């Protein structure tokens, strides 16, 4: 079930310059949600007609709360960053498919790049298999404590200020990290590179994609990605990121 509800801000912090973390008390969404899903955030401005899709970073079903970690890039996220405890926020969700059921015997690599790191936290927690996270930052680190508690992890930074200088693939290669399955979220070039790597190495690979959206529920066909096979719903080689995704088996996706 999807719910449109008014969630209440219970905590907001700036993690690093431009990246914020917000905890929201929900009525139903936290109970329904799984790692890899997202919510649509509605801004109060009538002039801004589209909702803002933001992935779930943490799901606290017990407390019926969710955590979103987001980068301020425009009107909507700027508005979100000014919310404080007690403010109401219209949410719609949980949306999308989330990460698939996992096999406890498979060794997993959980990979996040940039603002694609937060969506991997809940998955990292949930996995009941041998798991390692690889986090690729630009410069400033965030969510370190949380990942540290969830399992082992490696870090790369573009400027070399922490971990390996380079990207997540450099980390994998430098440390000869092995895996039966990869889960990844981040910029499209990173996902494409991982998909190619996984295909070459014959590793199962799941990528969480991003696309401009309008409805968020599969009705408007704004958010498609090219798929290798004809999609059952659309009857063409397009899959809806908001419904069939955002998480896809990398083999399904025809990266541009």
């Amino acid at each position, binding site marked *: 079930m999807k719910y449109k509800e008014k969630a209440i801000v219970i905590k907001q912090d700036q993690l690093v310059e431009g990246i914020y973390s917000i905890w929201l008390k929900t009525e139903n969404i936290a109970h329904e949600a799984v790692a890899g899903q997202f919510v649509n955030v509605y801004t109060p401005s009538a002039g801004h*007609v589209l909702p803002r899709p933001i992935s779930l970073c943490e799901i606290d079903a017990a407390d019926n709360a969710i955590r979103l970690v987001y980068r301020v890039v425009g009107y909507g996220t700027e508005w979100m960053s000014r919310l404080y405890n007690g403010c109401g926020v219209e949410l*719609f969700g949980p949306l999308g498919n989330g990460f698939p059921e996992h096999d406890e015997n498979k060794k997993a690599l959980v990979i996040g790049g940039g603002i694609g790191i937060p969506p991997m936290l809940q998955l990292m927690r949930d996995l009941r298999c041998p798991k390692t996270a690889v986090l690729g930052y630009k410069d400033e680190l965030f969510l370190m404590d949380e990942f540290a508690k969830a399992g082992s992890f490696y870090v790369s930074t573009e400027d070399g200020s922490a971990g390996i200088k380079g990207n997540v693939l450099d980390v994998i290669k430098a440390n000869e990290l092995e895996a039966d399955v990869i889960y990844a979220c981040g910029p499209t070039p990173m996902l494409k590179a991982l998909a190619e790597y996984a295909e070459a190495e014959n590793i199962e690979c799941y990528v969480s994609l991003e696309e401009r959206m*309008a409805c968020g529920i*599969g*009705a*408007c066909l*704004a*958010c498609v990605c090219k798929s290798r096979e004809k999609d059952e719903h*659309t009857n063409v080689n397009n899959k809806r990121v908001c419904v069939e995704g955002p998480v896809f088996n990398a083999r399904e996706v025809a990266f541009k």
Partner: protein
Amino acid sequence: MNLAVEIAGVTLKNPITVASGTFGSGAEYCEFVDLNKLGAVTTKGVANVPWEGNETPRVAEVRGGMLNAIGLQNPGIDLFKKRDIPFLGNYDTKIIVNVCGHSIEDYLEVVEKLSDEPVDLLEINISCPNVKEGALSFGVDPATVEKITKLIKEKADQPVIMKLTPNVTDITEIARAAESGGADGLSLINTLTGMKIDINTRKFALANKTGGLSGCAVHPIAVRMVYQVANTVKLPIIGMGGVTCAEDAIELMLAGASAVAVGTANFSNPYATVEIIDGIREYLEKHHIEDVKELIGAVK
């Protein structure tokens, strides 16, 4: 209190439907919008064969609205008949199928394939690019509009609503052409062509460069066109364009629309349709109006 209205002999239990392309075939919304409450469901445009649509990004937000260039992606009429029509058949609402095509033959094929289907109205989207005649849309030339309307009417088993594009010099001329061609009703407006450029990346916001502007920004243009057309032809009108709240829907009815479609507002608020129906009911109560039909074209 009567909320029912009539379009080309078909009775809608209330004047509210959805704008084609913003609501799929209803399946995605039925989880939280009770489709039985809608006057009709208007489906996403369907062509004779599946269309892939445009490259992404396909949508961009602008002030007071959005641009879209979905490119009429659709699964084709065969799958649509097998899946979408039976789905809608489960609900007590009217079915309006929006039809698109790149050539007159495309349209005719779809219309023929729908002839034995439990569809109440056909809405013909003539804003599609006419690939044969240089990609300008069918809907901008009166002679083409009259011709395509006539040919479709010959094949169609259901009443035919021609959906007009606002990107024309004189909407009344196009409306008259559709009337001459035998249309049973008109839908207006489709989107206005717009563009957005990101000044930092120096890229077009849409892969297709241009896209259709919809949302409350276009509402005053919709009101004007509905008014002009209602005062030019005798056909019933499904009004749309920027309807966000009950006031907007009532405004279009006062201007001359018999029914009203809600589009972009579904994205801002998935419950928009049902809230608008409630709002119309409240307005009628407050103003002691017994029959919603009294609103149609009441302001001259």
